[in-house]
Each structure stands twice: as C-alpha cells, then as structure tokens.
C-alpha cells in the first residue's frame, strides 16, 4: 500500500500555525515524539476536498533554516528529509502572519527555495485589517510564484479554500522555480521587506490594540500587580472550581466499589478489585479536575499571548537568580507537571540556563503533590480562620508552594555558581500580538492533556497499585499480627524504615515511599491501599483516609512528610524526561541525589523542630 501523501505545515513562531493545523485536522490528531529528541510531533489526518485522505504534520515554529534550538533543528531536518522517524514531505504548507509579512516572508522565501510543491496561507488577515493593513494576496502570489490563500485559522475562515488548494497541489504537483542565488539571512530579509511593501494596498496608521494593552499589562507598576493577580486567581481556581467535579468523581468511584462489593463474594478477587484497582486509580483520577483547570489557565495564557509578557516582567528577577525570563514559562508549567515543564525548556537557547531550569523544575509544586498535600492538611491542620477570608489550611498550602519556590531560587543560585557556571545572560523573545483564543483550540489542548493523564493513571498507577496490593496482602498475617508488617512489602520497607526513622517517618510511610517513586500521587493510593487491607473491623471501613491517618500519625511526622514532598524527586517520568533532555544519566542522577538530600534534610529539620516545640 502506498503511504498517504504527507503535507508539512511550517512557519515562523506566532504565525498561527497550530491553530491552522487544528482547523484542518480537527480532533483527528496524534501527539508523539521524534525518536532521540524530545520535540513533540503533532500529526493528523486531513480529508481533502475530493474526499481522499492525506497526512499532515505540524512542524515546530522556526525563524529560519539556521537552527538556534532543538525545535528548529527538527523543522530543518524534516524538510530536508534527514529526520529519523519522518519521511520527506511531499508538499509544504507555509503559514505567515499577514500583519508581520516583512519578517515572516524571510522564512517563507527560504522554504520556497527548497523546491517542494508549496502553498502559502496568509493567516490572521483579520488582525492585519484591525491594524489598518490592506493586502493584495494576488500580487504576493505572483511575486512568490506559489498559491497564496487568505485565512483566519482561529475563526476557521478560509479553511475550505485552503483545502481545495492543497487538493489541487497534490493532484498536479508543481515545484516552484529557484530565484535567489544569494540566499543568506540578510539578503532574504531585505527581499522579504520589498515583497511585503509591494503587497500592501493601503495602510492607515491606527493605535494598535496590542500596544494599548501592553501599556497597561507591561506598565512598571500595574504590570507586576496584574501578573500577581492572575497567578493568584489561577491557584485559587485550581482549588475552588475543582470541588464540585471532584465530588462527582468520588461519588462515581464509591458507587463502582460498592457495586463490585455487592456482586463479588469477599475474598482475594474482591480485595484486588476494590482495594487495589478501584481504590488506587480512584485516588488519582480525583485530581483530574485540578490538573485540567491548571492547564486551562496555562493554555489560555499562552494562546492570548500573555505568557511572553509574564516572562518579560519576570526576566530581571529571574536574572538575579542566574536565569532568564525564558525559564518562567517552563517553571510555571511545572506547577501543573514537571514533565511538560522540562520539555518546554527546549525553547531556552542557552544550554546552561536550560540545564539549570531542568534541574530546579521538580521543585515547583506539581499537581501530583496536591493529593499528598491535600490529604495531610485535611487530616492534621485544623480548619480554622486566622483572618478574614484566610484559613489556616489554605495558608499552609500556600506556604508549601512558597517553600518549593524558595528552594528553587536557592538551588538556582547555587547551581549557577557551581555545576552550571558560565554562559547565560540572554533573553530574546518575540512579543506576539494579543489574540482571542478559539474555544476549539483550547478544548483540544485540554483533551490531549486529559488523555495523557488518564493513560498514566490507567497504566503506571494501576500497575503499581496492584503490585503494591499484592506485596501488602501476602503472605497473610497470623492472628495478632498487623497485615502491613508481616507482608512482603512490610519486610522490604524495613530497610527503608531504618534510613527514614531519624527524620520521624513511620513504617507505613517507608512502605509508601517505594511505590511513590512511580508517581508522587501513588503515595496516597499506597497508604490508602495499605490501610484498606489493614482495616480488620467493618466499622473502620467507613472512615476516610484522613480520619485513619489522624489516629495513627503524630503531628511532627505528618509535617515532616509534607516537607519531604516539597523536595523529593519522587517521579519516574520526571527522571526519564530529564535523561532524554540531557542525553545521559549524569544530570538525572545528580538531580535525584541533590533533591533526596534536600528532602531528607528538610524533613529532618521539620520533624525535630516540631518535636522540640512539643507539637
């Protein structure tokens, strides 16, 4: 069978390339990775105007074929047919921003020179008009020698016409002629300016929206206050908006386990399904709403163009800790999850800055820590107000976030003066125009995040909780013994217990630390599984996990456990992505060592301070 024709979508950053890709493929997309590098590969299926299918691949945005980042290198290599895991595209769809032609045409000219059958999508013509710019796309078409189609990708306009043009291009491939022998950056740029100037019909000077918004959002006083306000609303929303959907998910899993309990006879199988599978996965899926709310904010901030402004505002502060504003976006994403955060560091051009950002990303309180924090706080911190609208529980949660950030600043300062010394000092970013994002693009982004999370819950987390259930259930305890202590898991954790005893951890925590290496949130399902198995009397089955913990752990132990999770690198995925991003085991091993050391010290200090204070 012949493979389907492959059309590559290429263009400069901020040309609206991904929105156009979404408009052409809809939800029929696959997100993967190019082998050997951690650049995401977005591909999709396009139904042509005549009903035939074609494959579409969305290449990372690049300013030119002279790469300045791993992303740009992938774009170049795919286009030259040199990228492993990708065949050479049969045709090219170049996306340019109509209101920034003088810059975007430079890359377009370079791409047309490749000689592939090519179409240019003159995107965001609405924003150009908003800026008082009227363009002649026919004239541009003549000058470029390839078809030019006007589009507004986020509003799904011009998509049908584009589809017809792609269809025609694949039916009768026509390779554009070469015209420029002196194709270096400066000459391409000058030619791009000539073409852009020639394509302009009228240009009326208007006060640009983006400029007006920036005079507020980048205001020296208002700007940082607005940023702080946005971040506050974001973290507030993560907790407030998630309560209702969380209660639905909890009710759903409770119904499921009650149903199974009613149908199956008491015994090993029922224990496996109810305590192991449903209990373990349910404890994690419950955090889906919070993760999605956090990603919703991050996607919105990115799609509107505000995220780069946040980086602009934060650059100087980040510079003082040895980083740049570039690191702000990956670190902010790390509050959702360090894995996409670490992957987002590939937009940092400077290798030392990038490495430092990767090493401190796990200190940003990721959403997987939330289950741990929420449970311990609910169990041990009294729910009382200490001021108008300020609760003690919320304050402790905020303190834990702050502890992570403070730890990250200290770590960055030390790292930049020792292991990642030198280089640095660059912050160069484009400030894109503000744009109203399309609901569909945001929904699609959230859907992809939800799929990735549920797949993780369904594989890694289900697997580890079942293994843990087995280790904690066998061999069966003799009368008078605690099941947890006589099981295989109990014996394994004896070794861990010896190490963590000085920092106030009990045997149950030692038991939970091992499976929590798979993912932090597993610590909770592990403790949940252990106590579910361990509960002998029927009445205690109705107790919540928080109530059970309250009876079993002294307060200093609980606080030390929280301090541990601020620092501990308890996540295989983070370690794996660090290995991939740094091309070896040196840096992930360094990261594990320094984070475990920090976690051990922090937990120890917390425990002994609390004990001394008599808490």
């Amino acid at each position: 069978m012949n493979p389907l024709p492959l059309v590559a979508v290429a263009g400069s950053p901020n040309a609206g390339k991904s929105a156009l890709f979404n408009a052409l493929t809809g939800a029929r997309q696959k997100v993967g990775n190019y082998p050997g590098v951690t650049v995401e590969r977005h591909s999709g299926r396009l139904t042509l105007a005549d009903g035939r299918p074609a494959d579409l691949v969305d290449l990372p945005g690049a300013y030119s074929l002279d790469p300045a980042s791993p992303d740009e290198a992938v774009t170049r290599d795919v286009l030259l047919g040199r990228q492993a895991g990708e065949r050479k595209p049969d045709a090219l769809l170049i996306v340019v921003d109509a209101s920034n032609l003088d810059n975007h045409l430079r890359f377009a000219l370079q791409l047309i020179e490749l000689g592939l059958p090519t179409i240019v999508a003159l995107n965001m013509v609405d924003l150009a008009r908003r800026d008082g710019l009227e363009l002649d796309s026919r004239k541009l078409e003549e000058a470029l020698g390839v078809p030019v189609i006007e589009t507004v990708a986020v509003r799904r306009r011009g998509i049908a016409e584009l589809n017809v043009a792609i269809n025609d291009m694949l039916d009768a491939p026509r390779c554009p002629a070469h015209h420029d022998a002196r194709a270096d950056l400066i000459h391409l740029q000058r030619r791009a300016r000539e073409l852009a100037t020639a394509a302009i019909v009228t240009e009326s000077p208007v006060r640009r929206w983006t400029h007006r918004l920036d005079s507020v959002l980048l205001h020296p006083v208002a700007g940082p206050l607005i940023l702080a306000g946005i971040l506050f609303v974001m973290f507030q929303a993560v907790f407030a908006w998630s309560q209702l959907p969380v209660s639905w998910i909890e009710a759903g899993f409770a119904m499921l386990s009650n149903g199974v309990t009613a149908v199956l006879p008491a015994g090993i199988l029922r224990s496996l399904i109810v305590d192991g599978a449903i209990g373990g996965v349910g404890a994690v899926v419950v955090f889906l709403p919070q993760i999605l709310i956090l990603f919703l904010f991050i996607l919105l901030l990115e799609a509107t163009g505000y995220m780069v402004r946040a980086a602009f505002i934060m650059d100087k502060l980040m510079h003082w800790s040895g980083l740049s504003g570039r690191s702000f976006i990956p670190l902010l994403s790390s509050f959702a999850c360090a894995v996409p955060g670490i992957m987002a560091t590939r937009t940092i051009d400077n290798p030392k800055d990038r490495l430092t950002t990767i090493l401190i990303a796990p200190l940003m309180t990721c959403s997987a820590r939330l289950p741990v924090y929420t449970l311990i706080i609910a169990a041990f911190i009294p729910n009382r107000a200490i001021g108008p609208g300020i609760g003690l529980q919320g304050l402790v949660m905020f303190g834990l976030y702050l502890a992570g950030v403070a730890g990250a600043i200290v770590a960055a300062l030390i790292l930049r003066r020792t292991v990642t010394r030198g280089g640095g000092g660059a912050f160069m970013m484009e400030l894109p125009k503000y744009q109203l994002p399309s609901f569909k693009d945001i929904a699609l982004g959230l859907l992809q995040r939800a799929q990735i999370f549920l797949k993780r819950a369904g594989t890694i987390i289900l697997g580890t909780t079942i293994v843990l259930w087995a280790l904690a259930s066998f061999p069966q305890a003799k009368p008078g013994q605690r099941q947890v202590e006589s099981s295989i898991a109990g014996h394994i954790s004896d070794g861990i217990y010896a190490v963590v005893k000085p920092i106030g951890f009990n045997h149950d925590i030692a038991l939970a630390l091992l499976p929590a290496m798979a993912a932090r949130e597993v610590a909770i399902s592990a403790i949940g599984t252990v106590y579910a198995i361990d509960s002998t009397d029927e009445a205690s089955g109705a107790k919540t996990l928080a109530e059970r913990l309250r009876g079993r752990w002294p307060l200093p132990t609980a606080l030390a456990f929280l301090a541990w999770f601020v620092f501990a690198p308890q996540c295989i995925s983070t370690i794996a992505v660090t290995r991939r991003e740094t091309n070896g085991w040196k840096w992930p091993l360094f990261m594990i060592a320094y984070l475990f050391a920090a976690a051990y010290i922090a937990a120890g200090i917390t425990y002994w301070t609390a004990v001394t204070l008599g808490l």
Partner: protein
Amino acid sequence: MIISRNMNAPFKPDSLPLDELKIGLRGRVASVDWATLDQAEANRLRHFGFDEGVTVEPLHLGPFGRDPLAIRVGRMTVAIRKSHARAVRVVPA
C-alpha cells in the same frame, strides 16, 4: 510608512546605543556590532529583523531594574536585554 531602508548606512557619529533611545522615540539602525554577540544571539537578532536602516522604537521597560526592553522592529515587537540592545547603534529619527 514603517520601513525605511538604506543599504549602506555609514557609521554616524551622532548615533547612540539603542538602550539609550528614549521610550516612544523612533530611531534608524546605523550599525550593529555583531562581534560583541555570540553566534546564537546574533542569529536571533537577525531573525527579529535587526539590520542597518531598519526603524526601531523602544516601547516598554521591564518593571524591575528597567530591564529588559520591548522594542518595535518593523512590524514586530521583541524583548531583549539592555546588554544586547547596546550592540545596536541608532540615529534618532
């Protein structure tokens, strides 16, 4: 018109470094001292369209320490640090 161009702009003694151009004032790039930038930084500045004869306009300053700078280059707005803006010399328009 936003773009004006002079292919062989000579070094003008009345030029000043871009980071000293006042916010809201326009200037024409007289020269870029590429030698003070490393390869990747120089490439990025070229990608952003910095070139002799191009009109630039500083728009905003970072809130902390008046750094970095947001600068309009042609139709694009870019953010760079003062230390890099210093490599670009402009003649106020």
